[in-house]
């Protein structure tokens, strides 16, 4: 891990203006992403997890520069994405792609598959109206397990899983190296999710892709991720190797998230599941101190005053009183 990261994010912030009060006079800036540092190395799979509204999708869009950050820096292969020229950015865009959650919304219903797949190539001047280009389209379809006859059909003629395959093929058209997958499975049928997950893993083996998975499904994360970032109200509260995070979460929030996942075993029912005590604070009124204080079973006075900083190198945690094995078992016994 000594070489340069593929993607480095430092102190990234994105504020959205929110108007409140009866006459909408009060203006508050809500930070959906509030000071995030990330290092992403080539060929690995990263997962960003957190509850809805924690800012994980905003972070993905910031990295892709689909929204502009308020503050901070994003560098890709050492180049600062926020200050490169338009020409350089266009070259970088080719190597970063995003796959969205809903394959019903992310394909233009009036574009045939041929047009949808050729579009990114045309946009980057890689399209010649010749056999070579045509072959490229067939190659892309082959990669995602679709055949030639798909080319002249329209999105409505495909099932959800097939549409997601088309979206993946489209993302692969420019031969990227870094792919952000924003909840790529959650709009799909249960029996189709495993197919798409396998496809993504196969493609990674074949092309050495780097993935950033954004998801709320923790069982998927355990299956695929090398490293996990846990996000809470705009901040990363725990980061570490997938095994360590799952086996010994240090942040009480991570512990809570993990213990809330239903286990596929009715015999294990009634196992001690840590239930949150309070409610998630509104992003408009984040209390001073720790962002988890309103729901933390171990909250102390210090947590209400001082905000804990993300501390640690390999396994980092932002908590004044991180959990250790002893306290995790003790908390279970108290249930």
């Amino acid at each position, binding site marked *: 891990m000594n070489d340069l990261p593929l993607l480095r994010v430092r102190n990234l912030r994105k504020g959205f203006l929110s108007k409140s009060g009866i006459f909408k006079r009060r203006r508050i800036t809500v930070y959906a992403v509030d000071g995030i540092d990330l290092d992403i190395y080539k060929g690995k799979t990263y997962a960003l997890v957190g509850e809805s509204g924690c800012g994980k999708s905003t972070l993905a869009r910031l990295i892709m520069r689909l929204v502009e950050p308020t503050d901070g820096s994003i560098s890709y292969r050492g180049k600062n994405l926020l200050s490169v020229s338009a020409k350089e950015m266009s070259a970088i865009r080719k190597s970063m792609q995003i796959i969205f959650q809903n394959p019903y919304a992310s394909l233009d219903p009036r574009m045939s598959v041929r047009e949808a797949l050729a579009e990114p190539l045309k946009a980057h001047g890689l399209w010649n109206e010749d056999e070579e280009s045509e072959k490229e389209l067939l190659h892309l379809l082959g990669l995602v397990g679709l055949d030639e006859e798909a080319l002249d059909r329209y999105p409505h003629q495909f099932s959800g899983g097939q549409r997601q395959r088309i979206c993946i093929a489209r993302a692969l058209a420019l031969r990227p190296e870094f792919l952000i997958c924003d909840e790529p499975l959650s709009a799909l049928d249960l029996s189709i999710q*495993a197919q798409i*997950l396998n496809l993504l893993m196969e493609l990674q083996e074949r092309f050495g892709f780097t993935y950033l998975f954004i998801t709320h499904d923790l069982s998927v994360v*355990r*299956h695929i991720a090398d490293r996990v970032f846990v996000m809470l109200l705009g901040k990363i509260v725990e980061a570490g190797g997938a095994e360590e995070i799952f086996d010994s979460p240090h942040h009480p929030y991570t512990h809570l998230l993990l*213990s809330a996942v239903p*286990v596929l075993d009715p015999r294990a029912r009634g196992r001690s599941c840590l239930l949150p005590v309070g409610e998630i604070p509104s992003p408009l009124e984040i209390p001073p101190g720790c962002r988890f204080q309103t729901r933390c079973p171990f909250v102390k006075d210090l947590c209400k005053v001082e905000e804990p900083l993300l501390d640690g190198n390999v396994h980092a945690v932002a908590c004044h009183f991180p959990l250790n094995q002893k306290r995790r078992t003790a908390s279970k016994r108290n249930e």
Partner: protein
Amino acid sequence: MMQKLISVEGLAVRFFTRKGTVRAVDGVSFDVDDGGIVGLVGESGCGKSATALSIMGLLGPAGETTSGSVRFKGEDLLRLSPKEMRQIRGKEISMVFQEPMSALNPVRSVGEQVAEPLKIHLGLSGGEARLRAIEMLEEVGIPDAASRYDQYPHQFSGGMGQRAMIAMALICEPELLIADEPTTALDVTIQAQIISLLHSLRERLHMAVLLITHDFGVVAELCDVVNVMYAGVIVEWGNVVDVFDDPLHPYTRGLLRSMPRAKRRQRKLEVIGGAVPSLIELPQGCRFHPRCEYVTKRCFSEEPPIFQLNDDRLVRCWLFEGRMKL
């Protein structure tokens, strides 16, 4: 032997669309015992929600229950007049939907909506209903219920909204609660709270629950008995522990094996090939045969009947031929 509370027999639901007739539910039979939690589990479009709506008489103009019966306390719900059905809905059988925020009326206070069934079904006065509704809101774990009563749905979070929906459904102490994907729109932490709430309410109020979900994890956490649906029919029925330990139908087996387990890391998941068939053009023979790894010649042409393995295992698959036919 537990008493049967509701007994669904040969239920069939059709939707008439421009593209053709959708056979959403195609002969479904199951029971819910007094005080039991029964799961109806399957992928989207398998007919699980249509089954629930048909039981409640809420199919709407596009859908029609074309055959079958729903016996509830000696009466067939499908033969009741709309007026008679209104007496039962919300009082003896009530329902909770997936999206609390679209199920609640945005321009009326949450408390009023929770109290409404008391006024309609039990003729309570405004003041009495308010007191009872506040108690019920407390019971489902809404803090500071008295002041929350007058708030509007937009002031509630998703989890609190779902608690309010559950309070509304349970306020007349129904004998059966139909919960259609009650936790799907919620985060896992809130889902865990709702699951534990349903467990404790079931015990305190002694009601039965028909849980409709696509999430096998939620089934494992809540249900006593599970019915697995595929393309409009129940393909497997059994006690929840048996179904998870030893799934019989190739579909159930495939699904359970394809799920990444939180405890185990494997590189490649086992998959069920293909996709769910269209309910307008169902395959001949067994509905699952185009995707089945154990498919035989017979499965192409003959739809399998239900085979009974023992008192509490049923499966709709030719692999079990020779067992007792139901």
